């Protein structure tokens, strides 16, 4: 490749893109291939973490674009990982995306449209015959092409004798044997991609002609034309063969085939398969929810502070600085004021609210990726098709619905694997019914109030919440599938990949990708919502209540020694102070500090109640009164519309005046909250009503946004919001009124 022609000054090019003077321009390589050919593994091997995930505008297909350093003579290669497809010519979203990218009419977000400089078709060496169809279609497009003959290690182990030289001759383009898992042949592949040329042969254009051509090429290049082994075991091409080794490999293949048959029969059996599925899924959920609590606790400690955690190994000055976590650090560093509050309570809190979910999501996707790599998930999809089919959902839905138990956001994005649009829409609409991690703090609060000292019943209620969510989701799918989204379910067709040991590397890269996407999507949104909620909960500023002022006066008098302990009354409640009933305080200063802390709590609680958010709650309270909620609960429910996880912290501030919902004893204090008429806020009927409401309600703006994007329009997000809100309201109403009628207050 030269920089310029001496005669006409025209610049030479590869694939139509001119080279820069003195430098080699980056080449754009499209990576294409059938599903289950190791294309993703190859992409990860080529680019590692040097990639970004984008999407193709106007579609719901992910686009991964990575960079790989070319060989010594070449520059960088920009590799775009296209969706796995069986053919460019079938009517599927993925095929259309690939067609348009190869034609140069579609590019990933942020990339320039244009034909790729070269195409690398990844082919499974153990399934060459089927893969040749796609190779033929790509060759017909007359773009510089390279074929990566992947999984060559498995082919050799299986005794397949693929002749790359003959394959090159037949295809008219470079063929490189490689193994993405081990890295064999990767350098040669990179070199070949840098030097890709337009193929010298063109396959037939018709479908039948192309299929006959693939048969012919396969027969010439794999096994068929090999002459019988001579005495010396030589055959054409000079590659020595050992008949005993070939026979041994054939026997091993037969044994593996038999094992595969048996495993398939077990994993797709209606009874045995279900048992296996329940064991696998229970183990997965146990690992996710049990093991993820450790990093979640660390994250919570980092953001909100934990004296035990920090005190365990830090010197005193660090404890003082970091004992309150990042929130405390900001409060320590910045002078008191509005911006400090915004930073500590809005920004840091908002970031923490997103980051805390990452361990669960990451672990969920790591394990799902491992399961997928083993080949089990494809079999489980057929099993689930039997279970979900009566509700109008396809077997493919179970991974998105499972993922939604960690967070609905990545669960909804995972619906991209569902080929039928109607079934995909159904899954998206019902995914948020699955109990996600953000609901758990509410469940913990309410079950604790309902079943104090009865952990068995509390656990049963917890499980009941999960089951209610699943049932509501399935019921909604059935109803929507027979009304608004009526249509015949498409029967499942799925390739069943070979059983194999999963690749940890692939799982790690996939997990990284999904976590980054979650942080980008949810992180910015939840942060923005946190800031808005903070502002609405902070303003307008109100005068402190008289009780708080009185407490401060008492504190001042206590410090000056003008006030005895026995004269202190709990002004806010009109009852004798508990302090005067307890052992007498020796330290006037600590007693004064306690009085001031109570005054702070009263002021904060009052400020929250009379803020814009609190006023909204009071205004909407009549709507929620039939559900048994007073204005305090209504504020909590209304503010958690934007993000569920703020309910407990909002209740903590309104009821107790304290912002740290993790503080010891705070749940009990919330549980002891009183209405304006003196009756308890959290009655039994109210608790059940609240629990049912939170199981079923749509209270997550980021999920709504992703629904709108993935479903292709805001109307679907609005439908989801209205439907879930209606179901939640009616169910909570029935529960509350039903319990009241039954005499349960």
């Amino acid at each position: 490749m030269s920089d310029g022609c001496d005669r006409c000054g025209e610049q030479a090019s590869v694939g139509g893109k001119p080279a820069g003077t003195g430098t080699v321009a980056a080449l754009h390589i499209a990576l294409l291939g059938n599903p289950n050919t190791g294309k993703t593994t190859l992409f990860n091997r080529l680019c590692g973490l040097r990639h970004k995930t984008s999407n193709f505008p106007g579609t719901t297909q992910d686009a991964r674009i990575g960079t790989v350093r070319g060989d010594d003579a070449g520059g960088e290669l920009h590799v775009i990982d296209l969706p796995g497809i069986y053919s460019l010519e079938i009517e599927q979203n993925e095929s259309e995306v690939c067609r348009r990218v190869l034609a140069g009419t579609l590019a990933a977000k942020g990339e320039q449209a244009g034909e790729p400089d070269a195409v690398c078709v990844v082919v499974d060496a153990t399934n060459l015959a089927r893969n040749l169809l796609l190779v033929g279609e790509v060759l017909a497009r007359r773009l510089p092409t390279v074929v990566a003959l992947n999984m060559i290690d498995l082919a050799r182990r299986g005794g397949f004798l693929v002749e790359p030289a003959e394959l090159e001759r037949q295809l008219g383009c470079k063929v490189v044997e490689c193994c993405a898992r081990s890295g064999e042949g990767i350098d040669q592949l990179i070199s070949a991609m840098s030097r890709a040329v337009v193929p010298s042969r063109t396959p037939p254009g018709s479908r039948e002609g192309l299929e006959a051509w693939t048969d012919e090429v396969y027969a010439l290049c794999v096994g068929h034309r090999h002459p019988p082994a001579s005495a010396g075991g030589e055959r054409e091409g000079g590659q020595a063969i050992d008949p005993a080794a070939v026979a041994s490999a054939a026997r091993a293949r037969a044994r593996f085939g038999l094992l595969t048959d048996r495993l398939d029969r077990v994993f797709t059996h209606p009874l045995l398969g279900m048992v296996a599925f329940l064991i696998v899924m229970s183990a997965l959920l146990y690992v996710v929810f049990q093991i993820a609590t450790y990093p979640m606790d660390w994250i919570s400690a980092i953001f909100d502070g934990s004296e035990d955690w920090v005190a365990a190994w830090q010197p005193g000055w660090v404890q003082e600085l970091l004992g309150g976590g990042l929130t405390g650090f900001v409060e320590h560093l910045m002078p008191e004021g509005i911006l400090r509050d915004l930073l500590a309570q809005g920004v840091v809190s908002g970031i923490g609210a997103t980051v805390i979910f990452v361990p669960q999501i990451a672990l969920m996707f790591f394990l799902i990726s491992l399961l997928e790599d083993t080949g089990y998930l494809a079999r489980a999809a057929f099993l689930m098709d039997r279970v979900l089919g009566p509700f109008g959902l396809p077997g493919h839905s179970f991974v998105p619905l499972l993922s939604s138990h960690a967070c609905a956001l990545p669960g909804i994005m995972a619906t991209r694997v569902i080929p039928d649009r109607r079934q995909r829409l159904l899954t998206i609409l019902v995914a948020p019914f699955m109990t996600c991690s953000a609901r758990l703090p509410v469940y913990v609060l309410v079950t604790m109030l309902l079943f104090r000292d009865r952990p068995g019943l509390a656990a049963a209620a917890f499980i009941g919440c999960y089951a209610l969510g699943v049932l509501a989701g399935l019921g909604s799918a059935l109803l929507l599938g027979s009304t608004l989204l009526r249509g015949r379910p498409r029967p499942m067709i799925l390739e069943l990949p070979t059983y194999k040991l999963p690749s940890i590397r692939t799982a790690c890269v996939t997990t990284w990708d999904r976590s980054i996407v979650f942080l980008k999507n949810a992180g910015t949104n939840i942060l923005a919502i946190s800031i808005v909620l903070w502002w609405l909960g902070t303003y307008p500023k109100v005068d402190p209540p008289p009780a708080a002022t009185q407490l401060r006066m008492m504190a001042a008098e206590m410090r000056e020694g003008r006030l005895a302990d026995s004269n202190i009354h709990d002004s806010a409640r009109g009852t004798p102070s508990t302090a005067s009933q307890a052992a007498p305080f020796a330290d006037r200063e600590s007693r004064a500090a306690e009085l001031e802390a109570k005054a702070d709590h009263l002021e904060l609680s009052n400020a929250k109640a009379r803020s814009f958010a609190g006023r909204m709650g009071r205004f909407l309270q009549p709507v929620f009164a039939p559900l048994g909620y007073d204005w305090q609960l209504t504020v909590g429910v209304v503010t958690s519309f934007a993000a569920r996880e703020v309910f407990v912290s909002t209740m903590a501030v309104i009821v107790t005046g304290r912002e740290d919902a993790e503080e010891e004893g705070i749940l009990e204090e919330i549980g002891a909250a009183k209405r304006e008429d003196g009756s308890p806020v959290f009655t039994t009927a109210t608790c059940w009503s609240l629990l049912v409401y939170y199981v079923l309600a749509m209270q997550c703006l980021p999920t709504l946004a992703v629904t709108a994007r993935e479903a292709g329009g805001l109307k679907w997000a609005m439908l989801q919001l209205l439907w879930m809100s209606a179901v939640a309201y009616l169910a909570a109403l029935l529960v509350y009124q039903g319990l009241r009628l039954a005499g349960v207050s």
Partner: protein
Amino acid sequence: MSLPIHDWQFWVATVIAILALRHVLKMLFPSGLPLMKKRAGGKGTRTTLTVDRKPVDRSIPTK
């Protein structure tokens, strides 16, 4: 009840909150708010075609 309008920090925090609200609305309405979308081509304004300030006689066929 009051807003601390004399505190510069209030204004900074309010601007940040407005930007955050804008982000939230953009998240929900990526193509713009429905009420604020302009119709393609607009309503248009009726006017009379003139040439050299004289109205055009549409009965005369053009070449």
